[in-house]
């Protein structure tokens, strides 16, 4: 039988909470004993999605970010949701080096990293409603892990 577990956290859109989100996902996946590289990939993807929600979704204004983490056996699904400004052109936003904030020294690599480090990424967004980023990754478990 595949073991399933799901967890949701909701936190204020402060940049300090990016670290909190990384700690939470690390703790959530700990019992699966993921490879160091896979853990780093997931941590980076979470950091990118949460940072985007905070700095683009809410433009550093008040708001809340919801992160849901699910494990189904060794399949990990993470969604990061904001109720912020939404993305005008999703296809464009996904292009490497595309950013709407070059003056803030953004590099436009966030979505590229999410794509490179996770197996799948789905973005849904609506102007003025918010953005939801769903990412999936299949872990390659080490021997001796549960």
């Amino acid at each position, binding site marked *: 039988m595949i073991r399933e577990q799901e967890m949701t956290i909701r936190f204020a859109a402060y*940049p300090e909470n*990016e670290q909190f989100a*990384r700690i939470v996902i690390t703790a959530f996946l700990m019992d699966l004993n993921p490879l160091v590289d896979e853990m780093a990939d997931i941590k980076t993807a979470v*950091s990118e999605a949460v940072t985007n929600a905070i700095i683009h979704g809410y433009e550093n204004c008040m708001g809340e970010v919801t992160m849901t983490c699910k494990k189904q056996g060794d399949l990990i699904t993470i969604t990061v949701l904001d109720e912020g400004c939404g993305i005008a052109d999703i296809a464009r936003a996904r292009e490497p080096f595309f950013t709407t904030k070059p003056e803030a*020294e953004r590099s436009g690599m966030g979505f590229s990293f999410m794509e*490179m480090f996770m197996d799948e990424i789905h973005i849904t967004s609506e102007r003025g409603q918010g953005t939801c980023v769903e990412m999936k990754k299949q872990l390659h478990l080490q021997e001796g892990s549960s």
Partner: protein
Amino acid sequence: MEFQYETKTGCLRIFTPREIDECAASEMREEADMLIDNYQIRHLIFDFSNTEFMDSSGIGMLIGRSRKMGYTGGSVVAENLNGRVQKIFTLAGLPKLITVVKEANHD
């Protein structure tokens, strides 16, 4: 802030923190620019010995400092990257802008 630095005649070495995310990157950006201007820095070294994690916020900050140094003909070097940070550098094309050195040469 957990990052430290050394300056010596036009040379600034910044010891980057354990994790470089948006918070750390914006503090580093501010502090580095202040130091670069105050000490007339011509040679900027980022020492990544302590850094285990960096996301795209760090990339933007590094590209920005490389630009700033470029205006005055200064140089930017990154040293002691661990495997993970090296990977992020490569994927973002940073080695085209910043010289990556394997070993530190504390002179």
